[in-house]
């Protein structure tokens, strides 16, 4: 039997434009996977009736007072559901253009992004933006749900036209895996099971795709990157008196006892002498050794030599060190109402390092119509742009295309701490867009 003990977790994000039925789709998925319980249904029924309307699926997900009053979704809501095969964390992201930052947020951790299009309206500017975000953030799988297919009388040509247009956009944006599905969230066509209403469609239903998609964490085969979060030194009088371990979560690859590694930014070589995981009982706190750990696992690593290792250090495979850099070319999604201009002094947060940064160049902004980069003097809210940064500390950074943890960063306002931008480090050859 499948349970959280042996089941894998898949992270989803949904994105759509206003009124294309996203809340209905999410409500339908949750409902048909039995993730909505009797008291929640009773609550929605009561509120729907009080407003004199039909059962409104959106009330299941729109939790804030303002959302209910205005009938819109404002902020990312997280939902949880499971099937026999998988359990899912769903980030339900609002569709309005001013909330694109929420789509970026949801997509940053997603294994699959579901983008909705209303079959009657086809590809909108928001669709292009959502596709661009999914491509930019290298979401492994993108599903385009052509919704309200019942409202175009299950017309195959409508579906085919949209699928073709989106397929071309996906190619331009470098989206590796795109699946297109005709659905009706309201009726339930092709959501959980394949629908007879779309006999011309021979692909899988949405849930089949979700149950069979590979997760983003399947990067154990990549080179080891282990950002050190916190140094553990018990300094107690017991067997752990001289214990010194470097705690963190394996960002990519596998770390094994005996591995030759380099500690960045210092660049010193050493060997992994131990990998520990905690063993705690009601009264005792201890660690047990294990031979290796893979990407996504939180462990504590011990090293053979007594080096200067602290938070901000990154332990990497000796045979594939990324080195360090103080200058970055990156693509950023600008998430703030405050515009970005050249010369701005900001903080950059990259793995476990936070350092000062100066924006030395704004190389351009993404034009959603042509998907090309055009000149820009600054970046405004929701712009996706290319920038160059000079950084006050050396960073052990990889291109985002090869590592979404050591290749990503935040730009933060040094005065009030606000998160201004999500950044993705470009490939050495330059172009991420």
């Amino acid at each position, binding site marked *: 039997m499948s349970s959280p003990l042996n089941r894998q977790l898949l992270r989803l994000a949904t994105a759509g434009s206003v009124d294309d039925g996203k809340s209905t789709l999410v409500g339908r998925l949750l409902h048909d996977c039995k993730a909505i319980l009797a008291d929640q249904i009773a609550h929605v029924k009561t509120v729907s009736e009080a407003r004199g309307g039909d059962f409104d699926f959106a009330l299941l997900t729109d939790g804030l007072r303002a959302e209910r009053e205005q009938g819109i979704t404002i902020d990312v809501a997280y939902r949880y559901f499971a099937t026999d095969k998988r359990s899912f964390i769903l980030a339900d992201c609002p569709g309005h253009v001013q909330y694109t930052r929420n789509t970026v947020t949801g997509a940053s951790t997603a294994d699959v992004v579901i983008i909705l299009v209303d079959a009657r309206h086809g590809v909108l500017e928001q669709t292009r933006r959502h596709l661009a975000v999914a491509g930019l953030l290298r979401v492994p799988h993108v599903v385009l749900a052509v919704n309200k297919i019942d409202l175009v009388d299950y017309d195959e040509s409508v579906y085919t036209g949209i699928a073709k247009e989106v397929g071309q956009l996906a190619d331009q944006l470098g989206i590796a895996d795109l699946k297109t599905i005709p659905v009706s969230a309201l009726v339930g066509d092709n959501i959980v099971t394949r629908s007879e209403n779309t006999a011309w469609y021979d692909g899988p239903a949405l849930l089949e795709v979700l149950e069979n998609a590979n997760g983003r964490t399947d990067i154990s085969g990549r080179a080891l990157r282990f950002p050190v979060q916190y140094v553990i030194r018990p300094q107690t009088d017991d067997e752990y008196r001289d214990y010194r371990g470097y705690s963190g979560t394996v960002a990519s690859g596998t770390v094994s006892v005996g591995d030759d590694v380099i500690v960045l930014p210092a660049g010193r070589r050493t060997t992994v002498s131990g990998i520990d*995981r905690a063993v705690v009982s009601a009264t005792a706190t201890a660690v047990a050794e294990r031979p290796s750990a893979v990407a996504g696992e939180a462990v504590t690593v011990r090293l053979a030599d007594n080096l200067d290792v602290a938070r901000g250090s990154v332990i990497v495979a000796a045979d594939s060190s990324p080195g360090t850099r103080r200058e970055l070319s990156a693509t950023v999604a600008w998430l703030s109402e405050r515009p970005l201009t050249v010369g701005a002094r900001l903080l950059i947060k990259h793995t476990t390092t936070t350092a000062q940064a100066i924006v030395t160049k704004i190389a351009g902004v993404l034009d959603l119509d042509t998907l090309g980069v055009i000149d820009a003097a600054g970046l405004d809210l929701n712009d996706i742009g290319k920038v160059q940064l000079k950084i006050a500390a050396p960073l052990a950074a990889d291109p985002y295309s090869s590592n*979404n943890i050591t290749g990503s960063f935040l730009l933060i306002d040094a005065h009030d701490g606000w998160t201004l931008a999500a950044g993705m480090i470009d490939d050495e050859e330059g172009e991420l867009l």
Partner: protein
Amino acid sequence: MTATLEAPLNAHTVTELDALESESIFVFREVAAEFERPVVLFSGGKDSIVMLHLARKAFAPAGVPFTLLHVDTGHNFPEVLAYRDNVVEQLGLRLEVASVEDYIADGRLRERSDGTRNQLQTVPLLDAINQHRFDAVFGGGRRDEERARAKERIFSLRDEFGQWDPRNQRPELWSLYNGKHKPGEHVRVFPLSNWTELDVWNYIAREEIPLPSIYYAHERDVFERDGMLLAVGPYSQPRDGETVAPRTVRYRTVGDMSCTGAVSSDATTAAEVVVEVAASTITERGATRADDRASEAAMEDRKREGYF
């Protein structure tokens, strides 16, 4: 080295519980590294117990580098208080208590007309945060619990009045948690954000984490009110027309004893609770928290004011 290289790379795929555990441990370590005065809210309820278990794992073999804070309603289940004190003593932790009772006694707070105290916890909580200058406050809230909580960040900024502004939250990307805040502000941190009730119970079963006895089936004198089974006790007495009868029950949540309901259950182990929770047709809060039913946005309103 050879022995470990021979194992196929996918020999241990990261399962749901392992992924959730690692995510929570990551969060604890980030806070320990980036904040000066973190505190863990600890009520003796199952979510705070799991939180403490994860915190211990994050820093083993060293001890937990955080103080605990209990906001005490004065309407406690005695089994839960005993559990709390026992844990603090066994692990050598430091516990601060903010007492709603003290606030009522000296007039800073007034008893509500319905006599329940969950909502009275906000002021003592915020005062304790100010008094001790806590800058990161770990809460056991889960996004699956409630609609407003579904919108929470893992690092959630509170202004100097302790207020949450759900319309103006920082975007939270990848696993880059931004803990920057101005003096007087603090950050609420929710390491169990992505856990469901079922995950918590599966984890308690797997890790064999001891819980207060009221989480398992026991016989108790109860009466029914608003579709909930309430215990007869010093803070809750049956009204006219409500009849008291002994029933075999357990608690799905523990809070103010006067408004926390029990559910009928025969589950005496965590594994049996897992089976029950998986088959339940009512949510945890729907079944057991009268105060959350108050309005469409009861939790949002309380959270805006600084509640857990």
